[in-house]
């Protein structure tokens, strides 16, 4: 079996579970990962050398205190307007890139390319907004024009970059796992060259575009400026999530996407156009990742600059933790937002390297991707009458 086939089967192993089981699996994975992460932090604290150990157990000195780390992590994510804003900022971005993985997944496709779609979408937004800024009106009208144009630029460029691997698949049968993965590197490199050669801001050092005009920025409401977070944008993101949910559950295209994802041969029997469905889901996914890129430019950094955060890759984990179900994306995105946001605080306050928070994130993904363990545990508990798990499928 090919590598991508194995990958598909690995992810696909999640699918056979019922809704109730999936929720249990995800919660169990998170709880286990946190527990295991604490042990790892304790171990790292034993191995590290420091001047003033914070924890003594049976005479052994530890540099890091796991409960303190957990406390700081949660406090750093929620306590304070800035902290909460920072958490929700990440959550917002994860919603877009998470959807970008979830939609093709429903069609039986693996879009590993949200990162590239995100990067090029954000470049499209930055360049596009700067391009039309000169002719846009001022004041509120200008803000409306520039912001909607910016989102549209991101969607179009990202959508095109999602369309490409879709086209390569329907036209030449190229495996989308491979193409979308490799397209990420192409996107990063192409964006760098374009900015470096044509759009670079000469006034400051580094490879970045000029800042978009102040009117095009998505201003924070209720949160401090430094949090770079707008509640309206989060609401917009949730609206997009709801829209995707509606698309999948209530429209013919959504039905056809799900039929193709579940059983391609039966979908063909039912008159589903495989090529259209592939192109549609890949393009939509790219467009949504591109909108994420637009939000990143207009809400967070205000320009395109090198070194974008790997939110496209994180989106895969967010989506899988949510069982690729739009309904689960918000809690899942929030958890990853907390880890991202609180993780920054952990490093500052406790001296625990942020890589250890990365280990925690890795553990969550790892444990979610190995659901069999939890499924068997759940089955065992069910057999002993300890828990009652619904056996209904979707809907």
């Amino acid at each position, binding site marked *: 079996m090919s590598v991508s086939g194995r990958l598909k089967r690995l992810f696909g192993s999640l699918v056979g579970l019922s809704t109730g089981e999936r929720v249990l699996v995800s919660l169990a994975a998170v709880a286990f990962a946190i527990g295991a992460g604490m042990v790892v932090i304790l171990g790292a604290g034993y191995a590290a050398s420091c001047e003033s150990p914070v924890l003594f157990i049976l005479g052994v000195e530890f540099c890091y205190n796991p409960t303190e780390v957990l406390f700081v992590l949660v406090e750093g994510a929620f306590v304070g307007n800035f902290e909460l804003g920072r958490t929700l900022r990440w959550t917002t971005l994860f919603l877009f890139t998470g959807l970008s993985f979830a939609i093709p997944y429903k069609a039986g496709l693996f879009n590993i390319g949200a990162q590239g779609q995100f990067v090029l979408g954000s470049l499209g937004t930055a360049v596009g907004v700067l391009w039309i800024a000169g002719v846009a009106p001022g004041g509120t009208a200008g803000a409306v024009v520039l912001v909607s144009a910016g989102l549209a630029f991101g969607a179009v460029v990202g959508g095109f970059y999602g369309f490409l691997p879709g086209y390569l698949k329907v036209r030449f049968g190229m495996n989308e796992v491979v193409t979308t993965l490799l397209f990420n590197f192409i996107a990063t490199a192409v964006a760098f060259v374009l900015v470096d050669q044509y759009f670079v801001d000469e006034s400051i050092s580094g490879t970045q575009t000029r800042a978009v005009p102040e009117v095009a920025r998505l201003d924070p409401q209720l949160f401090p400026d430094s949090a770079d977070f707008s509640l309206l944008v989060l609401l917009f993101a949730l609206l997009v999530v709801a829209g995707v949910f509606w698309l999948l559950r*209530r*429209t*013919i295209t959504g*039905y*056809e996407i*799900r*039929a193709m994802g*579940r*059983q391609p*041969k*039966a*979908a*063909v*029997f*039912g*008159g*589903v*156009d495989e090529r259209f469905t592939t192109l549609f889901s890949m393009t939509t996914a790219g467009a949504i990742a591109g909108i994420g890129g637009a939000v990143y430019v207009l809400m967070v950094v205000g320009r395109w600059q090198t070194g974008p955060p790997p939110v496209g890759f994180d989106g895969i984990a967010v989506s899988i933790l949510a069982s690729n179900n739009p309904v689960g994306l918000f809690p899942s995105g929030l958890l990853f937002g907390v880890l991202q946001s609180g993780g920054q605080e952990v490093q500052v306050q406790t001296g625990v390297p942020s890589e250890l928070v990365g280990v925690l994130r890795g553990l969550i993904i790892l444990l979610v991707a190995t659901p069999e363990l939890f499924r068997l545990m759940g089955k065992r508990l069910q057999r002993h009458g300890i828990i009652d798990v619904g056996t*209904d*499928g979707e*809907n």
Partner: protein
Amino acid sequence: MSVAVRLEGITKRFPGGVVANDDIDLAVERGSVHVLLGENGAGKTTLMNVLYGLYEPTEGTVYVDGEAVTFDTPQDAIERGVGMIHQHFTLVDPMTVLENIALGWEPVRHGGLGIDDTAVEEEIRALSERYGFGIGDVVRTPVEELSVGAQQRVEVVKTLYRGADIFIFDEPTAVLTPQEAEQLFDVFEELTAQGKTIIFITHKLDEALTAADEITVLRDGRKVDTVDAAGSTEDQLARQMVGRDVLLTVDKTDASRGDTQLSVSELSVRNDQGITKVDGVDLQVDQGEIFGVAGVDGNGQTELVEAITGIRDHESGSVSVRGEDISDRSRSERIALGMSYIPGERQERALVLDFDLIKNAFLGGQRRAEFRTGRQIDWAAVRDHADEIIETYDVRPPDPTVTARSLSGGNQQKFVVGREFLRDPDLVVAAHPTRGVDVGSMEFIHEQLLEMRDRGVAILLVSAALDEVTSLSDRIGVLHEGSFVDVVEPESVTNEQLGLLMAGKTDPAVSSR
């Protein structure tokens, strides 16, 4: 003769109140073939799963060789000599016959590091020779390269190798050609001659009468009767099975044919491997006519049907509906033209197994106006449609929220047939429409086909059951190696003559075109 298996008062209730078996008594003589006969959902398989240790009975006792036993797992059953051969094989395709048979029961050497495959091979050859299985020469061949019939014999040898004395066969002929089924019954004889006991689950009357010594009829989870096969008739068994009189022969009037509905000319089609499977076929189906396609499986039926229905591209030639060339039309456009299609591979093609029946009722009907309100799917309307299918075609369980996967094969088939027939089609392409369904439903499906024909629907019928083709069709095209050997009227040929044509031998005395 002694009794090999005795079931006493077996009742199996499932959570939710479904009673699959209700106080069933059964005694199976050693060295005999005992048939369990019943419709889809009558409780045959459940009863045998109780005997095989897959289910625990709610009430009642199982006796093997006169001794009360409790099997918690199939392993316990195997150890007491009870083996089961399922309809869907439990073989690992890429592994050899030898590896499959030895799997889990390998005699080891070198202290557990190696498998003593010479010993296994010798035993397989000995078993094959003793019972005439003919798999002695393919011991080292991967199972996937064997025919379905041979794979089934591998299953039998595997069960024998594990020391089984009592064999349960769950609808074994569903996957076999008629010739392979004959061979299986020969295997039954060999096994019983050696003192083995066979319990054979089926819903096919002719098979029951051919193979059985005794027949137990089940209906709605209850035992109706146990009778000797000798002296029983199909009519009487059908009545016991269904609970009313069943018309086993089709009563049909002459066709009143209208305009040509489907016209295929010079059609050539390749299969996935690029081999030409349909080679220059011409055929017309008129309104109000059933055109039957007879032929041994694999002579191009699947490819012909898939090219007509728009699943598969064709190489050359054309397909027209009502005089209009639809060769380049997509599958969904052909559905919109009023084409219904019952594919032979119902599990792969006709149903999304993980979807519930509501969503499956929608499959193929996505573009229909009555299932839509604006841009949205009207799921309530789809659900009503699902309920209609379930009620009209007696799909069990009658619950549209269960997944298609959870239905038995016969009920899946009834659901698919119902969905395609209730679409009010102008053209029906039906491949094996009654495969796996019980006699009661078969009668109903046949009636529906004839009723649609009389309303002026054009029907292309492909079936491996020769009786079905000859009794329903107005004309029969005999397909051999991708082209029609002849097109005949059913009244003018005997089954023997059809058999010769199917083998590719043209008989000038038969032709009546």
